[in-house]
C-alpha cells in the first residue's frame, strides 16, 4: 500500500504545475494501481486463487448438472453467482463486497429467495395432483392410462442392459430385430437370433435369469416406446420373455391441446385450474401447477372447511403468544424483584438454579413435559395428584392451559434474567427521590420501578411475542396441535397455532394431502403479522437511528 501511496503522491507532485485533463489523470492512476505489486502475489493471493479455483470448479459442475437435468433456473442462478464471485474477488474496486459476499450468497439463496418463493407458491395450486409442469402431467397421464392393444402379437423379448440402463430387444413377426430403452424408442439393431429368440445384441449385454430376478420390479416397470410419438404406445413385459404393445387409452392432440379417451370418446380440455376436464365436469387425476390468483387466501378466509378452523387458529395464536409473554414476564419480574436485594444470602445460587429451564435444549423440555402430563401414567397425575386421570393434553381447554403452563416453565428464566438486568441498571436517584417524597414500598414499585422496567424491556417483550407466535417446537412436540377439531376433513386441532397449521396443511409428514399453495398463503399471513409487529418494535426502539 505504501508503494501505491508514494506513487500517487509522486503523480500529484509531478503534475502540480499543469493539471492534465481529469480523464487522462484517472487513466494514469488506474494504470499505476495495476502495476503496484503490493501484496499481490503473496501467499494470501495464492490461497485466494486456490479457493476461487475450487469455487469455480464446483460452479462449473453445478452448471453442467443443471444443463443435463434441464433445470434452467438453477443454471442461470449458479452462472450469475459465479460471475459475481469472480468479479468481486478479482477486481480491485470491490473491497467491501469481498467480505460480505459469502454470507450474502447464502442469505439470498436460503432466506430472501425462499421468502420470495413462498410468495410465488402462495398464488399457485402447487400440491398433490398439481406437482409439476403441464408437459410432465401429460407424460404421466399417458403412462398411467395404458391398455394392451387388442389382438396385438406377443413378441419374443430379451432383457438387455447397457451399463445401468435396462432395455428390451424384440423380435418382430417378420424377423426384424429392434432394441430400445426407457428413453430411446425401439430402433433396428443387428442381433443374433437362436431358437426364435434374440441371444445377443450389438452394443447391449443380455441379462441372465439371475440378473433379471434381482431387478424384477425394474423390468416389469420398464416401458420401451415403440416410436418417438407417445401415442404409438410402448412395449412392456410381465415375464421377461414375451412383450406386448400397450397403447395409452388417452390420446393427446397437441394442436387442439386436448386429451381424448379412446374407450369412451370423451374429450378433455384444460380447464384453467391445472387439470384436463371433460364436458360433463369430470377431470383426469394428474394436473399441473397454475397460477390461481388469490384462491388460496380466499380458501383460508372464507372456504367452509377451512375458514372456521383458520379463525380459531389465528385467535388461539394471538392468545397463546400474548398469554405466554404476560405470564412469563410477570413471574420473571416478580422473581427479579424478590432477588434484587443485595444483602440476600445465596442470591447467586438461587439465580443459577432458576435459569436452569432456559438452558435446556428447546426440544428436550416439551418432550419431557409431554411425559409428565401424560394422562394415565404421567408424574403429575399419578404422583402429585394421587392417581387422578386429568386429560391435560387431550381436552381442548386443558391442552391450551398446559401449553401456556409449560411455556411459563420454559420462558420465565429468560424474563427473570432480563428483568434482573433492567432492575440493576435503574437509576438509584429516582428511587431515593420517591423515598424522600414519602412513597411506600408498593407505591415506589408501581409508580417508579414498574414503568421504568417496562420502558427498557418492551422491545424484548415484543420480540418474545414474535417468537412465541411461531413457537413451532413447543406446540408440535407437546400436543401435536391436538385434540383434533370435530371436522376431520382438515388436519387441524384446538391447540394448533399458525405455524403448525402451515406444517399440517403442507402435508409434509404425510398425514394429509400436500397443499403447498395453501400452506404458503398461510405463511404469507404470518409474514404480514410479524411485519406489523416488527414495525411497531422498530418505532419503539428506533433501532434504525443506531445505524450511522
Amino acid at each position, binding site marked *: 500500500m505504501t508503494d501505491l501511496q508514494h506513487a500517487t503522491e509522486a503523480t500529484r507532485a509531478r503534475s502540480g504545475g499543469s493539471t492534465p485533463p481529469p480523464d487522462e489523470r484517472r487513466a494514469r492512476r488506474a494504470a499505476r494501481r495495476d502495476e503496484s505489486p503490493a501484496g499481490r502475489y503473496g501467499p494470501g493471493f495464492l490461497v485466494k486463487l486456490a479457493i476461487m479455483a475450487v469455487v469455480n470448479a464446483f460452479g462449473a459442475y453445478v452448471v453442467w448438472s443443471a444443463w443435463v437435468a434441464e433445470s434452467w433456473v438453477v443454471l442461470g442462478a449458479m452462472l450469475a453467482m459465479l460471475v459475481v464471485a469472480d468479479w468481486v474477488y478479482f477486481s480491485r474496486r470491490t473491497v*467491501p463486497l469481498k467480505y460480505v459476499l459469502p454470507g450474502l450468497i447464502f442469505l439470498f439463496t436460503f*432466506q430472501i429467495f425462499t421468502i420470495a418463493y413462498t410468495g410465488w407458491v402462495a398464488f399457485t395450486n402447487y400440491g398433490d395432483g398439481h406437482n409439476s409442469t403441464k408437459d410432465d402431467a401429460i407424460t404421466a397421464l399417458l403412462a398411467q392410462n395404458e391398455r394392451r392393444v387388442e389382438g396385438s402379437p406377443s413378441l419374443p423379448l430379451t432383457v438387455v442392459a447397457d451399463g445401468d440402463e435396462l432395455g428390451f430387444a424384440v423380435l418382430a413377426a417378420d424377423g426384424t430385430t429392434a432394441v430400445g430403452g426407457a428413453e430411446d424408442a425401439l430402433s433396428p439393431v443387428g442381433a443374433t437370433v437362436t431358437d426364435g429368440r434374440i441371444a445377443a445384441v450389438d452394443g447391449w449385454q443380455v441379462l441372465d435369469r439371475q440378473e433379471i430376478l434381482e431387478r424384477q420390479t425394474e423390468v416389469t416397470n420398464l416401458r420401451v416406446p415403440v416410436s418417438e410419438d407417445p401415442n404409438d404406445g410402448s412395449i412392456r413385459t410381465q415375464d421377461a420373455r414375451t412383450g406386448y404393445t400397450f397403447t395409452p387409452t388417452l390420446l393427446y392432440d397437441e394442436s387442439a391441446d386436448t386429451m381424448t379417451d379412446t374407450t369412451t370418446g370423451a374429450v378433455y380440455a384444460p380447464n384453467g385450474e391445472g387439470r384436463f376436464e371433460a364436458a360433463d365436469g369430470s377431470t383426469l387425476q394428474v394436473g399441473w401447477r397454475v397460477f390461481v390468483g388469490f384462491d388460496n387466501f380466499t380458501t383460508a378466509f372464507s372456504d367452509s372447511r377451512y375458514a372456521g378452523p383458520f379463525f380459531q387458529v389465528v385467535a388461539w395464536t394471538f392468545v397463546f403468544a400474548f398469554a405466554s409473554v404476560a405470564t412469563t414476564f410477570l413471574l420473571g419480574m416478580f422473581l427479579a424483584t424478590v432477588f434484587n436485594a443485595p444483602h440476600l444470602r*445465596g442470591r447467586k445460587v438461587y439465580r443459577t438454579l432458576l435459569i436452569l429451564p432456559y438452558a435446556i435444549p428447546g426440544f428436550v423440555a416439551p418432550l419431557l413435559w409431554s*411425559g409428565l402430563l401424560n394422562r394415565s401414567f404421567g408424574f403429575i397425575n399419578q404422583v402429585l395428584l394421587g392417581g387422578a386421570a386429568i386429560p391435560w393434553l387431550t381436552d381442548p381447554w386443558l391442552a391450551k392451559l398446559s401449553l401456556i403452563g409449560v411455556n411459563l416453565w420454559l420462558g420465565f428464566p429468560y424474563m427473570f*434474567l432480563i428483568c434482573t438486568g433492567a432492575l440493576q441498571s435503574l437509576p438509584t436517584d429516582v428511587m431515593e427521590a420517591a423515598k424522600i417524597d414519602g412513597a411506600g414500598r408498593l407505591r415506589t414499585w408501581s409508580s417508579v420501578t414498574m414503568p421504568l422496567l417496562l420502558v427498557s424491556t418492551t422491545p424484548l417483550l415484543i420480540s418474545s411475542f414474535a417468537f412465541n407466535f411461531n413457537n413451532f*417446537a413447543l406446540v408440535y412436540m407437546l400436543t401435536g396441535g391436538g385434540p383434533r377439531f370435530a371436522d376431520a376433513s382438515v388436519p387441524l386441532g384446538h391447540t394448533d397455532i399458525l405455524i403448525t397449521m402451515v406444517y399440517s396443511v403442507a402435508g409434509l409428514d404425510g398425514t394429509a394431502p400436500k397443499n403447498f399453495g395453501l400452506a404458503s398463503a398461510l405463511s404469507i399471513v404470518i*409474514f404480514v403479522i410479524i411485519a406489523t409487529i416488527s414495525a411497531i*418494535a422498530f418505532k419503539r426502539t428506533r433501532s434504525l437511528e443506531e445505524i450511522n
Partner: protein
Amino acid sequence: MTASTISESRVSGRVTPGPARRRRTTGAWFADTGWRHVVGVVFVVYAVFPIVYVVSASLSAGGTLTGSNQLFDTVSGANYAALGDTRFWSWVANSVQIAVVTSIGTVLMGAAAAYAFSRFRFEGRRAGLTTLLIVQMFPQMLAFVAIFLLLISLGEVVPALGLNSKVALVCVYLGGALGVNTFLMYGFFNTIPRELDEAAKIDGATHAQTYWTIILRLVTPILAVVALLSIIATFGEFVIARVLLQSESNWTLAVGLYSWVSSLLEANWGLFAAGAVISTIPILVLFLFLQKYIVGGLTAGSVKG
C-alpha cells in the same frame, strides 16, 4: 450528591452490625429477607423438579413411564447402555457435526460482514444494514415449505444439496448466519479503535492482512460467543431438520428424540430420558458458562444503548 450520601447512609445502616441489628426480631427479619428465601425455595423446586425427574427416569431400571414415577427408586445404567443398541450415537454425531460446521461458517461469514460494515464506507452500506435488520425479524423457519421445495429442485441437479442431506441442512442454516449475528459482531467491531487499522495500513498491510492478523485477534471474545451461541441454536433447531432430513440415519438429536416420544411413548421413556440427559449436559455447561454474554447478546439486538 445528596442522593448518594443518603443511599450510603442507608446501606451502611443495614450492613453495620450494631445494637440496632441485634434488636431486630424474627418477624422483622422475615418481612425483610426471610420471605425471599421462601419464594426462592418454592420456585427453585418448580424450576428444578422436572430436571430431577428426568435424571431419575434415566436411571430407573424399568424404562417405562410408569416405572419412572418413583424418584430414584432404582439406580441403574441400563437405559444408558441401551442407547448403544439404537441410532442415538449417530444422531449425536450428526447433531455435533451440523452444529460445529454451521457455527464455524457463521463466525467466518458474520465476522467478515461485520468487518466490512464497520470499517469501510461504501455505497449501499446503510441500505445493507437496514436490510439485515429487517431480515432478522423474519425467522428462517417461516419459509420452511419453500425451503423444502427449493431443495427438491436443487436435489435434482446436485443430490448433495437436496433433501435428506446434512450438507444441505448446513447450507440452509448458514442462510441465517448474517441476519442473526452480524449486528452483535458489528457493535463489537466498532469498539476496536480505527487507529489500529490505520497504523497497520501505514505500515503497508493490505486490508486482508489487517483483517486476518489484527482485527480478528482483537475480537476473539465475540467470535467465541457467537460460535457458542450458534452451536446452541443449531443443536436445538427442530422444524427445518424435521422437514429436510428424512432417513433415520441422518436425523439430528432433536428429530430422533421426538420420534421416540411420539411413537411408543410408554416403552421408550427410559431411553428418551437417558438421551435427554446426555444431550442436555453439554448445552447446560455452555449456557452457564456463557450466561452473561447470552443475556448481553439478547439485549444487544433490540435495546438501544
